[in-house]
């Protein structure tokens, strides 16, 4: 594998156009392909960022012809693309879409796929470069990987490079993640494996690195000396919807904390990398995860909180309890809310708590990292203050919605008597950069085509994150079952979450 220009490289990405190749999408009839992948690829085509002669060979169980699938694809792109269809661009894009059918671990289907793949490669002169995209349920990963390995052993691999993109969740615990890594590594080198966490493709998440390491004023204060604590919140107002059956086997910890929030934690807490490339950045991220102090079972009760939503009102609509959702079994103990307090045993962050929380059916959708700084050392403005203490400076990085960064600071209210009031210096991403940003999937697919793995998770990162989560899961399993539901839909989670942070004399931010 040859690493090419990073998303962050000085030269514009368009100067390092990716090589012609074929993207093989497993799970072509699924929701992810319809809502995210095809619209992302179409938007890349619209921006003329795709390599010449790019081919997309879609594979699923449904028996479709190329034409029928193209029609279906057009409908989905029309529905989900961030920009309308340009007929000329669509015609050219659709001409590169092909379809083959079969079961995910079915040798016959894969033989048919490989034959079709070689035809497409020859017809469109893609040089045998292949990007496999596993947009399928995790239970089918290993079967597909094995079939890809079988094809390789039979000499049916491409002449050029072969990469694989794997969607989350990568395992359901440490053991399954390791098993999956072993299976993937039996066919692909780690450098050719692109584990997607779509959060990393978001502009604002990438901007964390730029904000921290391209601005000289941040780094000197980004440490235990100045930072009091950090809060990372991923709140959703939606419930589990039609995913009840899947979600019930997962829960908030596996669905959000193990991946998205651990990635945000890594980016916020990492040391400056030697360079902005896949190896250097991921080396530093994994160090953060390895520095997380692991819980003993008896610490879990005090350092974590979990809950499940009951019925309530969200955004003016009445919503059912989790256990009333479709596909959720009665008596489920699955958590729809989780909060942790973590400490990092590192020189930079010793003693600084990181409070993490995520949940469904919370009052609003919001993903935010808030760095709360220590107060001024001496209270000079006794007569100005309206509270017995000064409000801390808080730097909040809004990942979604209203992407941006704001810094809260105290300012004097004009006039007399003298008073201070918090004000926010607000940077609104979309208002400063009027052009619409590419979607996370556009960014990540483009990076995978270019061989840049900076924004993808590495096997050791995945395993380190699971190691942390396993301690939490172990602690929870040793505790008596909870009385559920324990929070009303439309509230900020169970009382235990407030107690978790209030024991330290702090409060969750009001988002």
């Amino acid at each position, binding site marked *: 594998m040859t690493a090419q220009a990073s998303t962050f490289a000085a030269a514009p990405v368009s100067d390092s156009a990716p090589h012609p190749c074929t993207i093989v999408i497993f799970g072509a009839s699924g929701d992810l392909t319809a809502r995210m992948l095809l619209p992302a690829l179409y938007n890349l085509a619209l921006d003329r960022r795709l390599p010449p002669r790019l081919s997309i060979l879609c594979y699923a169980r449904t028996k479709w012809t190329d034409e029928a699938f193209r029609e279906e694809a057009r409908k989905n792109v029309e529905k989900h693309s961030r920009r309308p269809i340009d007929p000329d661009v669509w015609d050219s894009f659709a001409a590169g879409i092909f379809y083959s059918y079969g079961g995910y671990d079915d040798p016959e289907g894969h033989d048919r796929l490989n034959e079709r793949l070689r035809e497409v490669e020859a017809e469109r002169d893609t040089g045998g470069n292949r990007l496999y995209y596993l947009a399928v349920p995790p239970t089918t990963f290993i079967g597909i990987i094995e079939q890809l390995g079988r094809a390789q052993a039979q000499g049916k691999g491409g002449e050029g490079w072969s990469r694989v993109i794997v969607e989350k969740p990568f395992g359901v615990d440490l053991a399954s993640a390791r098993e999956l890594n072993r299976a993937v590594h039996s066919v692909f080198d780690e450098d050719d494996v692109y584990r997607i966490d779509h959060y990393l493709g978001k502009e604002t998440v990438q901007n964390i690195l730029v904000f921290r390491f391209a601005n000289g004023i941040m780094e000197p204060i980004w440490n235990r000396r100045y930072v009091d604590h950090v809060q990372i919140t991923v709140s959703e107002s939606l419930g589990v919807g039609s995913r009840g059956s899947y979600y019930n086997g997962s829960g908030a910890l596996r669905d959000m904390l193990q991946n998205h929030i651990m990635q945000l934690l890594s980016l916020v807490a990492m040391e400056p990398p030697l360079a902005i490339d896949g190896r250097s950045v991921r080396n530093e991220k994994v160090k953060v995860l390895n520095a997380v102090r692991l819980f003993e079972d008896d610490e879990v009760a005090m350092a974590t909180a979990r809950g499940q939503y009951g019925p309530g009102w969200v955004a003016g609509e009445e919503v059912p309890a989790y256990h009333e959702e479709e596909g959720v079994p009665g008596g489920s103990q699955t958590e729809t809310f989780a909060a942790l307090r973590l400490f990092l045993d590192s020189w930079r962050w010793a003693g600084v708590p990181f409070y993490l929380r995520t949940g469904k059916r919370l*009052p609003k959708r919001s993903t935010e990292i808030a760095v709360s700084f220590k107060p001024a050392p001496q209270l000079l403005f006794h007569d100005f203050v309206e*509270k017995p203490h000064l409000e801390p400076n808080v730097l*909040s990085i809004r990942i979604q*919605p209203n992407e941006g960064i704001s810094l809260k600071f105290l300012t004097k209210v004009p006039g007399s008597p003298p008073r201070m009031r*918090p004000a926010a210096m607000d940077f609104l991403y979309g*208002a400063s950069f009027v052009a619409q940003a590419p979607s996370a999937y556009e960014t990540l697919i483009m990076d995978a085509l270019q061989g840049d793995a900076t924004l993808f998770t590495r096997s050791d990162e995945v395993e380190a994150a699971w190691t942390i989560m396993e301690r939490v899961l172990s602690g929870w399993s040793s505790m008596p079952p909870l009385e559920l539901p324990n929070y009303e839909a*439309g509230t900020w989670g169970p009382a235990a979450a407030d107690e978790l942070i209030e024991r330290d004399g702090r409060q969750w931010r009001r988002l």
Partner: protein
Amino acid sequence: MAQALDHEDRELSWTGRAVDIDRIEAELTKLRYFTAGDPEGAEGFAIRTSLVNVVVYAEDDDIAAQASRVIEDLAAHHPSRALVVIARPSEDESRIDASLAAHCHLAPGVDQQVCCEEITLHVSGRAAFHLHSIIVPLLIPDLPVVVWWAGPLPDKSHLIEELCEVANHLIVDSSRFADQLGDLARIREFASLHDCAIGDLNYERLRPWRDLVEQHTGTAGLGDWLSSVKSAEIRYTEQTKQPPAQAILFLAWLAEHCAWDLGSVSARGSDRLTLKQNEREIPVYLEPVKYEGVGRGWLVSIKLAFERDGEAALLSVSRTGDPLHVTVRTELPDGVREDHVRIPACDSQTVLMHQLDTAPHDPEFVRLLIAAAPLIQATRN
């Protein structure tokens, strides 16, 4: 059905019927982008700013429109994200109609506009019983939340409790209460059950009266007489048969100022009260009078008569024919002095601004309300 954002001089607006919160948020984002920067670059940048979330509860569209004008006028001093909520819980259909507006003002001395966002929500049916679920997603994170209850208190408390779940500070106007004294008692009970600070615009209107009494009883002249009040008289513009909240709140303040025992209050009718100071009885007369130019139940004059060692003194503060001027008269054994003083306008904008300036962390009103409980009880009976 929704209209597109319009750009009309200094106001951008959008209206939508039967919309969900996601749609409102999306339109708000558009509004923020419009106000934050003009893509054409023709007019320079507008500054979108907010220091506080102000949630206004209005009983009807007229009160909402008045409140909206007040909020807009306050924008230069207290730039806010304003949510004006009109709840109609009795309607059958549960739905939200919304309109958004950005009010922009030219900042002094610079060629930039300062913009504030206002969201007006008509919430009908069952959704009106769950206002916090609608309001919370629309608040700007991490800024204080002030709820201004702009009209009379509702018969049942659930709406006000709904709003106070999200509030740091509740502002009421007891002059608009239907049963002013009864509703003051409800506010007192409410304060004992909820964390949010409470302020009253009607009490804020007493600020010039309190300041004048404090000034004139703090001087060498009348300062020595403060413990020798013989009687007090409070006159107010006519309203209902009960004395108005403003008069009772002033009396409660005066009692504390003069160290009278509020627990000792007894009433002979609702217009003649007696308080005690060290077993000495002090009669207080409450009297409605005709006066044009101020709200119903507002103070028109106060008079304190003093008697000490066979000598008499007097302090009176009376509105002149101009509601913005008062005459302050002091009579001491060694002479009479009369001053004409201009007092601030006590319109909603002025008193709300004072509240936003000071009251969020000023517990005086609630403390006074608790102390005044026997007074309110005696006057109501």
